[in-house]
């Protein structure tokens, strides 16, 4: 029973962390057909900015988190303005933006490396202590991560389903041309989506670094996991991505307990490969009909 609770706690925490960064990626892919490979750099940026704001500037934790999200959304906006907008509609957009964002991610990580150094650092934005649930210790940090992630998911879902902006985003990802003909300013929508996704990535970066510490290349593995979650859910499917994130988080916690931490990622990837061979369009994806 205690073991099960422990696994549940760590699985939900992992799932919450993954969900926050994954919905950003899913939004971007849904609207722009763009895989943002700079996500890893954005995760690291968020973690480092929060640490820097608390240590060097002495800001309180909520303000530091907001600063990190602002930096993330600024970086996301820059990616759109500098890389995605000049290419939009051009030949081979998917390939080119993929490669361009790899380059941007590399630059982002190198700049962080130059500014903060290669040695691992601890995240200052972190709650200490915990509460005992029966025999199991629930760290406050995990509760905070889970609560924040849930709040973010609710906010994003509300924005997508209830607001004018959300309706425009959904329209754009359903059919870009039709949305544009109906007067949706798609470039501004794209910019908004990238900024939103940058802010979510920064927040996720704070969460990840509070569990595993800060490193300039800390975003690489979480980014790959976030993409895998997107792929399993079906690229561009936002609610599916959030659900899958929690499922994968639980699965990872179970695998970690049974086989050990070092095999968790490898087994997870093998499972994903199997899922994709079974359902190439993702679990929640619809089969696409290609029209010529």
């Amino acid at each position, binding site marked *: 029973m205690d073991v099960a609770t422990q696994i549940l706690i760590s699985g939900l925490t992992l799932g919450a962390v993954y969900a926050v960064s994954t919905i950003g990626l899913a939004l971007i*892919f849904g609207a722009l057909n763009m*895989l943002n490979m700079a996500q890893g750099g954005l995760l690291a940026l968020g973690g480092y900015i929060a640490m820097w704001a608390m240590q060097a500037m002495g800001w309180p934790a909520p303000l530091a988190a907001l600063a990190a999200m602002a930096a993330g959304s600024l970086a996301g906006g820059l990616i759109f303005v500098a890389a995605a907008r000049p290419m939009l509609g051009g030949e081979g957009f998917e390939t*080119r933006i993929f490669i*361009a964002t790899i*380059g941007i991610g590399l*630059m982002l990580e190198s700049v962080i490396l130059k500014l903060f150094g290669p040695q691992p650092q601890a995240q200052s934005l972190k709650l200490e202590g915990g509460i005992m649930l029966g025999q199991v210790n629930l760290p406050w940090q995990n509760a905070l991560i889970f609560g924040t992630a849930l709040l973010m998911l609710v906010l994003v879902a509300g924005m997508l389903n209830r607001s004018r902006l959300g309706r425009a985003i959904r329209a754009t990802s359903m059919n870009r041309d039709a949305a544009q003909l109906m007067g949706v300013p798609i470039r501004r929508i794209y910019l908004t989506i990238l900024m939103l996704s940058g802010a979510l990535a920064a927040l996720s970066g704070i969460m990840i670094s509070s569990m595993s510490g800060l490193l300039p290349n800390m975003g690489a593995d979480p980014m790959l996991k976030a993409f895998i979650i997107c792929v399993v859910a079906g690229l561009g499917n936002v609610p599916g991505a959030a659900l899958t994130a929690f499922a994968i988080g639980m699965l990872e916690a179970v695998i970690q307990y049974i086989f050990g931490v070092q095999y968790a*990622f490898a087994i997870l*990837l093998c499972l994903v*490969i199997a899922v994709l061979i079974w359902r190439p369009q993702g679990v929640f994806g619809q*089969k696409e009909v290609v029209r010529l």
Partner: protein
Amino acid sequence: MIRSPVRRDVVIALVLFLLMLAVPLLTGTRYVLTQLTVFFIWAVVASQWNLVLGVAGIFSLAQMALFAVGAYATAMLAYYIGLMLPAAMLLAALVTVGVSLVIGFACLRLKGPYVALLTLAIGQVMYLLVVNDTACFTTPASGCLPLFGGARGFSRFGDLGFRDLLGSKWYVGHYYTGLVLLLAAQLFCIAIIHGPLGLAFRGLRDNPGLALARGVSRMRYQLWVFGLSAFFTGLAGAFHAAHFGVVGPTAFAFAMLLFILAMIVVGGLGTTWGPLIGAALLMWADEGLREVSDWREIGIGLVLAGCVILFPKGLAGIRLRFSQGRGQRPDAPPAPPPHTKPV
């Protein structure tokens, strides 16, 4: 037929080959020759990857994993079975083709970005399985050795025999081996690009409806290109192992994958000579940036992003752009691609 593109490309390849043949006679500097040998290896990988990515349109990131398969297979065949290295290299290239076909069957049913992520994941799985394996398979004098070499990898599995043949000038032998490998790989590229496979992909790009109706199956031809190009990729990995005498998990490194990708993108995706131009340019720039090695990563990132944004067709494409005369703008926005969203 004198101006036919095939003949032109073959002539260029042979002239370059003859020029490079003379280099060791003109300069005996070991540094220059070994750098060029490494250039040959990366040029082979870049040219084959370009076939997959640029010509066949398969968004595969498994190319470095296939390269590593070639390197590991060579080392393991030579180390465990005691095969001569040249034989081990050829066998390893065939093993790589086998592995690539398995990956191809799993991935090629998927669409663009799914293929990219899945192949990236496959490479990562291989890396993790190699590095995390700590159970001893054999225990040589140097200590415990896992089946796939673990984090340390393999060393001392023999060499190509040039040390006995040429003595202290062994690296000249490696230089010529690499050069011949590159020539073979480049001739293969020319054959693919101008041959039936290249035509099939051009048809699929220019008029998919007609091509499909004429029975041109995208997946079947993609599998052909994927498998065939894996041969030279594996051979390049095998030669890399033989040249350096060590094989380790660094062969899977993401940084290396980016470096090769940058070569293709800078040179020109889908062009015949772009990958070689890109490989030469980036290796030269990399040597130049060695003094300021802190900036190397930033430089590569900047080059990668800048080139795809500013020169979508790479350096090889700039020449095309100028030769098409004024007035016409080949980079003018093309007709929007057919919409493939479910309706």
